[in-house]
């Protein structure tokens, strides 16, 4: 195998790692930013640092990335792992990640990657290369379970937090202090994310190097790969997917400190419990479920189910959409080096176009948690009080 395609795949995998990072900043940091437990810049800096550290902590699951879903045994009707196959899968995942970011939808980066690889595998070896039962077990069922487990936990946790801090006369006291606790709970989510997600890219790169004969079959993950992946995910996290932070932090429901702490704790515990009991759940879906559950759990809060519906629609589309892009890229990549070049160019154009479109409605650290919403709040509160007085 030539040298050039491998370099291309490594570069593309790092780009995916970067999108993975900025897509998932929201999972840990949307709620502390929303409650002002942390300033936006501090929050993304903390998340980036923890993702960087997390990436060095483990390579345990790096090589099991697509294991089982795609039949990698070329001798028995499976798809041969070649740089071209990985290239197409990763390109599909990147394009879907950028698309969902443009729409501010928290969607699973792992599912995007699975989708891309599936599309690529179907083109390479036909539908027989996909294990549908494994797909159901590893992707679809967990996707149904994650929001439910996290949501139910966050609902009860929120109710508990408010019940305990509610005084006898029904008035609260000292709930602002939950902001301090939020720093710990959201940091735990960021660390867990770093140890899990950077490994996906490490696995992809190592797999490609092995398939190209540049690395031994039995080789572990080379150090430069760990370093590059850690830096890419940390940089992505620091850039912050502000559109997604806005959706999770204020789009679904208005988050208060006690509620935010309950949601983050539920997210952290759900991820840790599931990944250690052999039922790995998507961080993004768990975090979204927690925010919705905590919104249901707090008295007087409103959950915008329309936004929740859009997010779920995004989840349903993730696998087929990234598979379609992956398949198209695989068709091009099959044409050889020229095909790879055309696919890369087309991918770059699509991503570039979406970035240009995103400039029209810029969302950044300064306005992720909407100023408009805040202004509306400031206007709303006195009006509410007046109404209360007049009824008395």
């Amino acid at each position, binding site marked *: 195998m030539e040298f050039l395609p491998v370099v291309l795949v490594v570069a593309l995998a790092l780009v995916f790692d970067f999108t993975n990072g900025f897509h998932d900043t929201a999972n840990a940091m949307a709620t502390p930013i929303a409650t002002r437990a942390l300033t936006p810049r501090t929050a993304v800096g903390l998340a980036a640092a923890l993702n960087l550290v997390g990436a060095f902590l*483990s390579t345990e699951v790096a090589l099991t990335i697509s294991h089982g879903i795609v039949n990698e045994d070329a001798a028995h009707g499976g798809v041969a792992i070649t740089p071209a196959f990985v290239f197409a899968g990763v390109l599909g995942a990147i394009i879907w990640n950028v698309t969902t970011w443009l729409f501010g939808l928290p969607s699973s980066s792992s599912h995007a990657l699975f989708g891309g690889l599936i599309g690529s595998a179907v083109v390479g070896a036909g539908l027989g290369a996909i294990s549908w039962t494994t797909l159901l077990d590893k992707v679809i069922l967990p996707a149904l379970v994650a929001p439910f487990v996290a949501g139910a936990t966050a609902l009860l946790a929120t109710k508990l*937090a408010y019940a*305990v*801090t509610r005084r006898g006369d*029904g008035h*609260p006291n000292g709930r602002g*202090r939950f902001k301090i*606790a939020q720093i710990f709970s959201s940091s735990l989510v960021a660390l867990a994310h770093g*140890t899990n997600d950077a490994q996906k890219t490490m696995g992809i790169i190592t797999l490609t190097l092995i398939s190209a004969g540049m690395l031994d079959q039995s080789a572990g993950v080379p150090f430069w790969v760990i370093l590059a992946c850690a830096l890419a995910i940390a940089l992505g996290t620091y850039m912050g997917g502000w559109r997604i932070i806005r959706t999770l932090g204020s789009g679904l429901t208005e988050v208060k400190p*006690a509620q935010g702490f309950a949601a983050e704790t539920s997210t952290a515990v759900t991820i840790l419990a599931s990944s250690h009991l052999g039922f790995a759940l998507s961080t993004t879906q768990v975090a979204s479920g927690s925010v919705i559950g905590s919104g249901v759990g707090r008295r007087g809060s409103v959950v915008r189910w329309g936004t929740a519906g859009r997010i779920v629609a995004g989840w349903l589309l993730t696998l087929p959409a990234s598979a379609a892009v992956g398949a198209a890229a695989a068709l091009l990549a099959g044409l050889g080096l020229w095909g790879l070049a055309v696919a890369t160019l087309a991918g770059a154009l699509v991503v570039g176009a979406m970035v240009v479109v995103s400039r029209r409605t810029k969302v950044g650290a300064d306005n992720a948690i909407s100023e408009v919403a805040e202004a509306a709040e400031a206007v709303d509160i006195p009006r509410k009080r007046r109404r209360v007085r007049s009824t008395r």
Partner: protein
Amino acid sequence: MIDWIALLTVLVVTMVGALAAVGLVSLGIRLLATPDRPGAIGEPSDAEEDDVNTSGRRPVPATVGAIACFTGFAAIVLYGIWLIVPYFH
């Protein structure tokens, strides 16, 4: 085949862990905000982010209890970190 046992275990463990952590911190925060100041503070709804507002000095048992609660929470966080880092186990 859907592994219902694994699923149920995840749900139960998650519930117990999260409620323990949130319960400890809430209790600690409640204890720090004693004694209650008479009269209304904030709104009775759960919409307010209330500052600490007490009357007089906090009793020593309340402070000790709050520290115990936060220590318990710290232990849960440390266990979480222990779980995250494979080097430890």
